């Protein structure tokens, strides 16, 4: 076939259209997020943040403060562990009900699935804020909040993992007369157990970060100390607390890495696959869980006394019906738009920064930087960005970007390291310089993974963006916080429904985009 010399790239048209639509879509979002890099260099802001940062040195190390800090750290660990136990107990039956695995007829399970969506769709901090109103200040609210949200997340992912492994072994067992639970235990769990355990450990790591911020709504732990330190602009205390965060997150990271690696070891050659190490680990887990529930006043049983149930009843009843008056809806709609803008801008900034940090990751300072960014939760970043650029959505977007850049940078670096190396090597052997060889050889192999990570992160960030307003960083959180403080439950209820719908919509959009990328 002879080539038409004037051949044009047939993809050019759609690329041009994409290149034109992306700015058209992003521009209003950047406007809504009030992105204003100049604010970073505003002299007034510089003075505030400069004074604050200057006070970081030396970090506070008075004996009294360290005593508070130790107690708050223990409380944080207890909230995370107790919350995870609750989440796990909730997730196992829910996952069993929701998953299509091990069923002979496909089912939809609309009830369980929508319950999971509601549990996951409302951020844990919103649950915590609500529970604090009912049960009073203290760690119990944090534990319940973590338990519900993480229970929903664990159940959804467990259900998906069980559906993703080879279904044939379980099907054969069922045809041979085994019931569904036994068929799943013998036919599915052996295939899925490693991934299930690995995800659970990973979630526990996240739970520690989440319980750190519970204190911002009065649900105990390190966050409460941080909130106080920030309100007093006490840089020395803030520095010590931040260092403690990092220490906690790094140790959780190390422990979870070690646990996941030990899942990879083949079982020993003896009748029971569980040996001394597993027994020790099981006991430690049990002891940790019991100690966590016993710790201070995480007394969930007392929640079910009659007067508590009554007060829950009246509190919940106040939320219905949601306030649907036109001017309130208008305000909420603007909050939704701002929240969406914060999540998109924050994620995009993080993707760019994460990529820049991932490329030279082999160098020591970048690893430390990535881990530092990652170990500080978004909400804590937000308390500092509002000092740097003032109250409003830009502070929220920056806070999201800072934390997410750490997370994405690490994921990107892993994806690039795992991309098939042959294509890039071949180009370098043909004399291609580093960056073209990377763009033509390595990047196409890693791109689907990079895009998927970014979109998953966006799904998380929309939930985060919804609560950054608790510390004044814009979005729906601000509305919710104010209305709940004023006991306007009906208005708050509208905001919560909006958060839920927004997170569902973003999940759908992200799934659609991921499908488009293939």
């Amino acid at each position: 076939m002879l080539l038409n010399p004037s051949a044009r790239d047939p993809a050019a048209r759609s690329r041009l259209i994409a290149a034109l639509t992306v700015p058209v879509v992003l521009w209003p979002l950047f406007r809504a997020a009030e992105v204003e890099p100049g604010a970073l260099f505003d002299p007034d802001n510089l003075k505030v943040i400069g004074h604050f940062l200057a006070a970081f040195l030396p970090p506070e190390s008075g004996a009294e403060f360290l005593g508070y800090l130790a107690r708050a750290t223990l409380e944080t660990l207890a909230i995370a562990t107790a919350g995870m136990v609750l989440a796990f107990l909730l997730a196992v039956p829910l996952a069993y009900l929701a998953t299509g695995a091990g069923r002979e007829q496909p089912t939809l399970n609309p009830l369980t699935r929508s319950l999971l969506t509601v549990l996951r769709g409302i951020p844990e901090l919103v649950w915590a804020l609500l529970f604090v109103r009912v049960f009073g200040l203290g760690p119990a609210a944090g534990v319940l909040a973590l338990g519900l949200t993480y229970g929903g997340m664990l159940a959804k992912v467990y259900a998906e993992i069980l559906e993703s492994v080879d279904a044939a072994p379980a099907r054969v067992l069922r045809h041979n007369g085994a019931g569904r639970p036994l068929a799943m235990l013998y036919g599915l769990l052996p295939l899925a157990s490693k991934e299930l355990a690995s995800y659970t450990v990973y979630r526990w790591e996240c739970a520690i970060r989440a319980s750190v911020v519970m204190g911002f709504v009065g649900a105990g732990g390190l966050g409460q100390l941080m909130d106080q330190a920030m309100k007093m602009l006490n840089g020395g205390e803030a520095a010590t607390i931040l260092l403690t965060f990092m220490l906690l997150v790094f140790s959780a990271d190390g422990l979870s890495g070690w646990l996941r690696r030990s899942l990879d070891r083949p079982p020993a050659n003896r009748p029971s696959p569980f040996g001394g190490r597993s027994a020790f680990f099981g006991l430690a887990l049990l002891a940790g869980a019991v100690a966590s529930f016993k710790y201070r006043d995480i007394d969930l049983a007392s929640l079910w006394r009659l007067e508590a149930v009554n007060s829950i009843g009246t509190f919940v009843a106040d939320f219905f019906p949601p306030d649907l008056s036109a001017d309130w809806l208008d305000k909420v709609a603007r909050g939704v738009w701002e929240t969406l803008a914060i999540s998109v801008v924050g994620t995009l900034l993080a993707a760019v920064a994460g990529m820049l940090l991932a490329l030279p990751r082999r160098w020591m300072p970048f690893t430390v930087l990535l881990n530092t960014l990652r170990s500080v939760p978004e909400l804590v970043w937000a308390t500092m960005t509002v000092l740097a650029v003032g109250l409003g959505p830009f502070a929220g977007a920056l806070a999201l970007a800072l934390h997410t850049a750490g997370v994405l940078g690490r994921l990107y670096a892993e994806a690039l390291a795992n991309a098939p190396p042959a294509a890039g090597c071949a180009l370098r052997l043909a004399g291609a310089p580093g960056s073209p060889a990377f763009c033509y050889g390595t990047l196409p192999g890693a791109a689907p993974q990079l895009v998927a990570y970014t979109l998953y992160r966006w799904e998380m960030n929309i939930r985060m963006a919804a609560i950054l307003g608790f510390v004044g960083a814009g979005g729906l959180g601000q509305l919710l916080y104010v209305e709940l403080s004023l006991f306007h439950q009906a208005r708050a209820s509208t905001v919560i429904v909006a958060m839920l719908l927004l997170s569902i919509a973003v999940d759908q959009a992200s799934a659609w985009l991921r499908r488009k990328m293939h």
Partner: protein
Amino acid sequence: MAFRLNGVGLAYANGFDALKGITLQAAQGERIALIGPSGAGKTSLLSVLGTAWAPTVGTAEILDAGDRPRSAAALARLRARIGTIHQSPPIPGRQRAVTAVLAGRLGRWPAWKSLASLIYPLDIPGAGAALDRVDLADKLFARCDQLSGGQLQRVGIARVLYQQPDLILADEPVSALDPALALATIRLLIADAEARGATLVASLHAVDLAIGNFSRIVGVKAGRIAFDLPAGEVGIPLLHELYAGEGGELPVQAHEPHFLSQAAANDAATRAACC
């Protein structure tokens, strides 16, 4: 001189000696076939020629760059003049054929051109012509994960044709092609090398393809050179000795009787199979 290997040995990181005492040289424009059983060291030898591995023992002078170029820039300039066709084409599945072919010139293009070309391919006619030579002009804008194994291998060949290197290293360039197409493709590579005065070193599994088309045959066995002879002097006993331990059959492309005598008579049968 195209290359001169002097007492070259190559030990991999695990300590395995893949090449031992290889001394081999070629004039510019020569066309050499490497044959030998699986694991003999053909790919390893081609990697040394392609500067992927520096010899652990001995010296390797490639093109006119001398032994070991002094700087990274000099090495990159040398590598831009070497084109390698890999045993399995190292092309990302999501890349389009046009981009995969244009990637052959990354070593010579300025960075801005390489990057701009990712947005809009800057030499569509050039890539199209290269793909046309391997009969794939209609796949110019197809994604590589939608090509068959043989088509993908031909995209890899088109990339090297587009690169126009002074030294072409082909590692089993036709392993995924049917006999007729394999022969046509080998001839295409030879014709391209001949027209541009480039040197061609190709490793081949099929001895009939090697002997029928290349003037010089190098047999490799257990990391050493077993023989280095003009094609006409490679006889059946020599080949049986080279492939001893692979079951007594000689690996060939076209299962025709007496292929060797035909090969020596410049291969009329296979030529017929081609057209």
